[in-house]
C-alpha cells in the first residue's frame, strides 16, 4: 500500500474522531471536520456522479458552493435530499450518500450510451430533434423527463422542524474571510451592533485554504484569534453555517442557518433557521470563485480547480492526487504547485497559457525543480473515468490554435485556474450594476441603491494585503455611516506582499479540431453546456446573454453558473465580435444557493399553518361533534351530525328543530363595533343607506353600507344603546375591514364629526336562541327583562341579567323565527351555553351550525353579503329599494344614479324552484332562458344559494338573473354537464311570507 492520502498533520479535521459513512453502499471512514467531498478524496474516490445530459462520469471539481459536478442523493426516506453538493455536506456519523444520475453505478452507467448520440442532442435539441411526428412530443417528453434530472424528491412529508428569526443590526458583514474579519474587528471598536455570518462552521474563509501568514501567524491561527476577539464582544453576533441567499429591498437579507450537523434528524432540534436580517449598513465580503479553463475534455474526474486542491490539502489534509499537472493563466495557481511540492506530492508540470511566466511565484516553482511550460495548452485528456494522461501542445502566436509536437504527461490530477471571479451575487440581487474590468477580465460591483460596501475578493481585490486593507477601511467607514464612533485602532496588519503578473484570458482553449467536433469543451458542467453549444446558439442568431442562457441552459443549473457564467459570456462575446462589457452578464437572482421549502414555511405548518380563531364556546362544539366551517380565520360549527348521520339529515334535523321548537347558535364571530359620540347618528347616516336620525334608544335597525361605487359592501344590525351610544354588528368576515372603513372616513373625510369606534367583537360571547320556544327557555334565565312580545317586540334591545351574567339581549332574527341574541362577557359564554343546552333539553333544544343558519335565512329570502353579493350588486338589484333613503346623502348614493346602475335589466335577486323537487341546483350554476342546439347559449344569470328546505319539503334556490323582477313566473334552465335542471322563477321569499312567526 502506497502512502496514505491523508496527511498526518495539519488541517481543520479532528483525527481523534473518526466518522463512519456510506457511499453507494460502501462503508467508508473520514474525520470530524471533513466534508463528504474531502472524505471521499481521502478514500481515493473521485468519481461521484454522472452528468445531466450525456451521463458522462464526473468527479469533484471544486471545494465549496461553486461545485457543479459532485452531486449526491443524501439519505433515503422522507429526509432524502436531491442534488446536494458533496463539497457542502458536513460529514456525520452514519451518513448515507448515493451517486446522482446513474444506474447501476457511476463507474458503469447504462445511460452513458447517450454520450454517443451527442450529435442529435445539441443546444435546444428539444426544439429541433423530436419534432416528428407531431404527436410524438408527448412520448419524447415523457422519456426525456425520465432520463434527465439529477435526483428525486421524497414522497413523504418533511419530518423535520424549522425555525424563523428576525434581527436588526447596525452593521451586517457577510463573509468571514480576511476582509470580512478585518472589517468586523475594526467595526467592533465602536458600540454599533454587528452581525457577521459565514456559510462555514469556522471563520477564516480562504485563510483556511491557503498557506499564508498575517503578523507572523498562520492564516487559520490569525482567523481563530480574531474569531475569539469577536466572540467576547457582546455587540457582535456571529452566525456560522449560515448562508445569505438573497438581498432584498431596504437592506433586508435572507439567510439560512443550518442548526443540525446531520440531516437525519436530531431529537428536539430544528433543522434550519430562516433569518430575516434588517441592516443599516451591509459589508459584502463573499470572496471570489476560481474560473475554470475551457479545454478539451475538461470535465474528466481528476480535473479540479487549483484553489480547491489547496483547500483539500491545507484545510482537510487530503492529497487529491499523487501526480499533479497544473494548467493555469495566472501566478496565484503556482501556490498550488508550491503547497503540493512542500507536502511531497509530485507536480509533474505546470502548463501556463501566458507567453512567459516570470513572476515571483513561477520563479519559485521553477527553482524548486518543477517544469513550467509557457505559451502552451492542454489539448486532450486521456482517461474516461479518471485522468491518466494529458496531451500538451504549444499555442500559436494569437493563441487561437495549437502547433508543434504533442507532448504527453502522465498524471492523475489536473489543477486548473483561469483566474478568479468576484462573487457579485448579493450585490447583483439589489439590482446593482456590475462593471467589466478589462485588464484581467472580471466583473466587479458597480453602482447600487442599497447601503452596501463590497470589499476584498468580491470587489476584485484579490491579494491578501488588499483584502485586509479593504476590511480595515470598510470597518471604519460603516461605523461612521451608522452614526457611531470608534476608538483609534492599529493600522493594517503585516502580511507578505507578493507582486503578481497579469493573467492571460483565452476563453476557448484550442485543440487539434474545432471545439465540439471530436472532444467536448465544457463550459457549464452541471448542465452539460459546451463551448460548441454557445457557438451554435450564436450562429442561430442568439445575441443576448439572457436568450442564450435560456436556449442553451448555460448557468441555469443548481449551481447557478458560479463557475461557468463568465467563460460562457466571454465565449459568446468573442463569437459575436463584441466586448464582454457590451453583452453584459445575466442577472443574478435569489437564492444564491438552494433553499429548503421547509425553512421558508418555518413553524407555520400543521396546526400553526394559520391562526385558528376559536370562539368562547369552541370546545363545547368540538366535544359535541361539530364539523367545522372555516370562516376567515374562525372555525365555526358547520353542522353537528349525530352518529352516522349524513350532512343532509343533520341539517334537516337542525332546521326542523329550530322551526318547531328552539335552536341555539354560536354567533360570537359576528363583528361588533361600539360607536360613541354626539355625532354617531349623523355618522351612521352617511355610512348606511337608510335613515338613523329617528332610531330610538333601545331599538335596532338593519342597515346596508355601500362602497363609493354603489355596490353592497356589508350589512348588519345596529342598535342604539344610549343617547350617543350605538352598537354596530358586521358580518364575520368583514369585521376588521368595516372598522378600518369607519376609521378611514372618520379620520380623513369627516374629522369634524365627534365619534369614536372601539371593536368589542372579542368582548362578548353571542348566543342566539331561535324558534317558537326560545322565549320560554330564556324566561327561565332572567327575571329582570320582560320578554313578552308586547314589552319586548322584535328589533329592540334590553339590558339585564341572563344566567347570572350582565347581558345585552337583542330581538334580532336571521331565521324568521322569534329569536333572541344574547351578548355576555366572553369568559361566561361557555357556562351560559351549557346551561341553555341543559335547560332546553325539555324543548329538544338543538345546536345548529352555519349550514342550517344559511338554509333558514334563505327560506326567508335574507341575503348573505359575499354569497348573494359579489361586489357588483346594488341594493336595488337585491330588491331592497326600501332601505335607500331619498332624503339624505350617503356613501355610494351618487353611483346609484349612474346609467349602468340604474338599468332595469341588471342582474336582480329572485327565487328559483326546480321543477323536480329533489334536484338541488349547484351554487354558481349558470342560468339560460332557452335551450338551443348551438353553443354558446346566452347566459342570463347564476345561482347564488341553493338548498333543500326541510320545512317546505323541496329544493329551492336564490339567483341573480338579468331583469329578474320581470321574469317572475317564467321557466329557466340550468344546463349541467350531464343533465339540465328546469326551474320556475319566483319571489325570493319562500316561507312565512306574512312574517307571523317572527313574533312567536
Amino acid at each position, binding site marked *: 500500500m502506497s502512502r496514505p492520502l491523508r496527511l498526518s498533520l495539519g488541517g481543520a479535521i479532528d483525527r481523534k474522531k473518526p466518522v463512519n459513512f456510506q457511499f453507494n453502499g460502501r462503508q467508508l471512514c473520514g474525520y470530524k471536520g471533513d466534508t463528504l467531498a474531502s472524505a471521499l478524496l481521502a478514500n481515493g474516490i473521485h468519481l461521484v456522479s454522472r452528468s445531466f445530459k450525456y451521463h458522462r462520469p464526473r468527479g469533484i471539481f471544486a471545494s465549496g458552493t461553486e461545485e457543479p459536478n459532485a452531486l449526491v442523493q443524501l439519505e433515503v426516506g422522507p429526509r432524502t435530499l436531491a442534488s446536494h453538493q458533496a463539497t457542502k455536506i458536513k460529514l456525520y456519523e452514519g451518513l448515507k450518500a448515493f451517486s446522482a444520475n446513474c444506474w447501476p453505478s457511476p463507474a458503469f452507467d447504462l445511460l452513458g450510451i447517450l454520450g454517443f448520440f451527442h450529435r442529435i442532442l445539441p443546444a435546444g435539441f428539444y426544439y429541433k430533434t423530436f419534432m416528428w411526428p407531431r404527436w410524438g412530443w408527448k412520448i419524447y417528453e415523457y422519456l426525456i423527463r425520465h432520463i434527465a434530472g439529477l435526483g428525486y424528491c421524497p414522497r413523504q412529508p418533511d419530518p423535520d422542524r424549522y425555525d424563523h428569526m*428576525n434581527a436588526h443590526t447596525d452593521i451586517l458583514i457577510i463573509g468571514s474571510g480576511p476582509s470580512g474579519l478585518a472589517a468586523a474587528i475594526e467595526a467592533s471598536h465602536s458600540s454599533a451592533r454587528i452581525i457577521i455570518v459565514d456559510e462555514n462552521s469556522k471563520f477564516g474563509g480562504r485563510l483556511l485554504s491557503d498557506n499564508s501568514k498575517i503578523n507572523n501567524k498562520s492564516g487559520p491561527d490569525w482567523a481563530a484569534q480574531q474569531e475569539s476577539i469577536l466572540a467576547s464582544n457582546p455587540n457582535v453576533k456571529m452566525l456560522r453555517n449560515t448562508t445569505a441567499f438573497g438581498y432584498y429591498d431596504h437592506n433586508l437579507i435572507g439567510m439560512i442557518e443550518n442548526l443540525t450537523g446531520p440531516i437525519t434528524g436530531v431529537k428536539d432540534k430544528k433543522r434550519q433557521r430562516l433569518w430575516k436580517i434588517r441592516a443599516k449598513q451591509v459589508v459584502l465580503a463573499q470572496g471570489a470563485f476560481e474560473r475554470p479553463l475551457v479545454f478539451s475534455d475538461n470535465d474528466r474526474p481528476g480535473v479540479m480547480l487549483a484553489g480547491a486542491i489547496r483547500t483539500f490539502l491545507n484545510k482537510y489534509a487530503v492529497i487529491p492526487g499523487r501526480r499533479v499537472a497544473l494548467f493555469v493563466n495566472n501566478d496565484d495557481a503556482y501556490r498550488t504547485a508550491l503547497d503540493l511540492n512542500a507536502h511531497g506530492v509530485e507536480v509533474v508540470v505546470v502548463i501556463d497559457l501566458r507567453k512567459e511566466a516570470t513572476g515571483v511565484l513561477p520563479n519559485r516553482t521553477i527553482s524548486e525543480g518543477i517544469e513550467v511550460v509557457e505559451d502552451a495548452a492542454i489539448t486532450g485528456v486521456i482517461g474516461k473515468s479518471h485522468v491518466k494522461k494529458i496531451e500538451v501542445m504549444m499555442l500559436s502566436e494569437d493563441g487561437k490554435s495549437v502547433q508543434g509536437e504533442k507532448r504527453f504527461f502522465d498524471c492523475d490530477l489536473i489543477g486548473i485556474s483561469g483566474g478568479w471571479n468576484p462573487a457579485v451575487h448579493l450585490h447583483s440581487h439589489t439590482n446593482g450594476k456590475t462593471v467589466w474590468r478589462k485588464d484581467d477580465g472580471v466583473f466587479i460591483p458597480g453602482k447600487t441603491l442599497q447601503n452596501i460596501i463590497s470589499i476584498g475578493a468580491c470587489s476584485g481585490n484579490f491579494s491578501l494585503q488588499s483584502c485586509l486593507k479593504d476590511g480595515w477601511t470598510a470597518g471604519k467607514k460603516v461605523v461612521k455611516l451608522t452614526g457611531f464612533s470608534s476608538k483609534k485602532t492599529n493600522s493594517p496588519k503585516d502580511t507578505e506582499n507578493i507582486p503578481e503578473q497579469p493573467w492571460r484570458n483565452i476563453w476557448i482553449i484550442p485543440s487539434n479540431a474545432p471545439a465540439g467536433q471530436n472532444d467536448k469543451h465544457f463550459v457549464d458542467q452541471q448542465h452539460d453546456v459546451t463551448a460548441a453549444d454557445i457557438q451554435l446558439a450564436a450562429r442561430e442568431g442568439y445575441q443576448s446573454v439572457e436568450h442564450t442562457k435560456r436556449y442553451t441552459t448555460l448557468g441555469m443549473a443548481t449551481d447557478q453558473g458560479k463557475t461557468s457564467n463568465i467563460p460562457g459570456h466571454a465565449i459568446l462575446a468573442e463569437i459575436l465580435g463584441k466586448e464582454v462589457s457590451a453583452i453584459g452578464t445575466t442577472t443574478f437572482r435569489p437564492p444564491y444557493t438552494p433553499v429548503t421549502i421547509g425553512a421558508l414555511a418555518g413553524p407555520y405548518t400543521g396546526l400553526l399553518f394559520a391562526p385558528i380563531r376559536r370562539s368562547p364556546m369552541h370546545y363545547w362544539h368540538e366535544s359535541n361533534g361539530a364539523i367545522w366551517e372555516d370562516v376567515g380565520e374562525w372555525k365555526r360549527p358547520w353542522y353537528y351530525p349525530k352518529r352516522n348521520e349524513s350532512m343532509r339529515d343533520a341539517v334537516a334535523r337542525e332546521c326542523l328543530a329550530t322551526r318547531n321548537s328552539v335552536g341555539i347558535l354560536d354567533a360570537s364571530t359576528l363583528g361588533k363595533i361600539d360607536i360613541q359620540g354626539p355625532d354617531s347618528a349623523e355618522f351612521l347616516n352617511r355610512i348606511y343607506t337608510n335613515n338613523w336620525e329617528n332610531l330610538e334608544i333601545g331599538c335596532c335597525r338593519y342597515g346596508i353600507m355601500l362602497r363609493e361605487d354603489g355596490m353592497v359592501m356589508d350589512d348588519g344590525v345596529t342598535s342604539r344603546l344610549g343617547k350617543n351610544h350605538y352598537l354596530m354588528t358586521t358580518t364575520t368576515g368583514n369585521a376588521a375591514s368595516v372598522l378600518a372603513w369607519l376609521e378611514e372616513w372618520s379620520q380623513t373625510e369627516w374629522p369634524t364629526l365627534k365619534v369614536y369606534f372601539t371593536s368589542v367583537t*372579542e*368582548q362578548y360571547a353571542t348566543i342566539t336562541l331561535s324558534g317558537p320556544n326560545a322565549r320560554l327557555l330564556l324566561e327561565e334565565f332572567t327575571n329582570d327583562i320582560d320578554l313578552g312580545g308586547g314589552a319586548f317586540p322584535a328589533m329592540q334591545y334590553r339590558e339585564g341579567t341572563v344566567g347570572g351574567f350582565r347581558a345585552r339581549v337583542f330581538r334580532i332574527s336571521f331565521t324568521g323565527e322569534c329569536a333572541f341574541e344574547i351578548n355576555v362577557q366572553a*369568559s361566561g359564554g361557555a357556562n351560559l351555553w351549557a346551561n341553555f343546552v341543559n335547560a332546553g333539553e325539555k324543548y329538544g333544544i338543538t345546536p345548529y351550525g352555519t349550514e342550517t343558519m344559511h338554509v333558514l335565512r334563505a327560506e326567508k329570502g335574507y341575503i348573505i353579503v359575499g354569497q348573494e353579493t359579489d361586489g357588483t350588486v346594488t341594493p336595488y338589484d337585491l330588491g331592497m329599494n326600501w332601505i335607500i333613503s331619498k332624503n339624505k346623502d350617503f356613501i355610494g348614493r351618487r353611483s346609484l344614479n349612474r346609467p349602468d346602475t340604474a338599468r332595469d335589466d341588471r342582474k336582480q335577486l329572485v327565487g328559483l324552484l326546480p321543477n323536480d323537487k329533489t334536484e338541488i341546483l349547484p351554487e354558481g350554476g349558470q342560468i339560460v332562458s332557452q335551450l338551443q342546439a348551438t353553443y354558446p347559449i346566452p347566459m342570463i344569470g347564476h345561482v347564488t344559494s341553493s338548498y333543500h328546505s326541510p320545512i317546505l319539503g323541496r329544493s329551492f334556490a336564490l339567483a341573480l338573473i338579468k331583469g329578474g323582477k320581470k321574469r317572475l313566473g317564467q321557466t329557466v334552465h340550468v344546463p349541467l354537464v350531464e343533465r339540465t335542471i328546469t326551474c320556475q322563477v319566483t319571489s325570493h321569499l319562500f316561507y312565512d311570507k306574512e312574517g307571523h312567526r317572527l313574533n312567536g
Partner: protein
Amino acid sequence: MVETYKRKTPLANLGLEKVSPSEQKIGKSLLMTEIPYIAKVNLRGDPAKKIFLKGVKAALNIQLPKIPNTVSGKFSEVQAIWLGPDEWLLTGRSGAEAKLLKNLQKQTENMHVAITDITDSRTIMQLSGGPALSIIMKGCTLDLHPNVFKPGQCAQTILAKTNVIIHLLKFDKKIGPTLHIYVQNSFAEHLWLWLIDAAPT
C-alpha cells in the same frame, strides 16, 4: 362580578391551571403564564383638552402617557398603555373594571369620550426569562433589542400572524426581560402553541 367558576379563560382548554407556575417553565429559563381577567378598559378622548386629562387623572390617579408606545402607572394597580394619539388601554386589578368604568364616566361626564369595557376581549401572557425577547423576534419584525425596546415601552404589532400589544415591564440583569403580551381571546390558543413551539428546548 361573576364568580370565577363560571368563567373560562381563552386558554382553559390547555389545562394550564393544573400545573403550578413554577412547572410551566419552558426549556431552561423561560417562564410563561397566563394572567386572565385583568380589568381592561379602552379609552378614547382628546388629549389636547386639559379638562379631559384632568378628569382621567382624577379617575385613575395616574397620568395618561403622551409619548407614543409608552406605558404609565403600575400593572399591580392601574396602568395606561398608549395605543394611538387619542386611544389608551387602561388596566386594573382583576374585577376592578366596574369601578374603573364608573370613575371614568363620572370624571368625564359631558365630554366627548368613549369608555369601553374590554376586560374579556384579550388575555395577557406573561413571559419572563432570558430568551423571552428572542422568542418574540421569531415571529415579529420589530426591533426588540434592549438598546431599542426599553422597560416601560409598548408596541402594537403582529406576532405569529396575530395582532398583539407587547409591553416590556422590566429588564432584570439576572433574570432577563419580563413582558406582557395582550392577545385577543380568539387568537390566544394559537399564539400560546406558537410560543411553545418557538421556545428553545
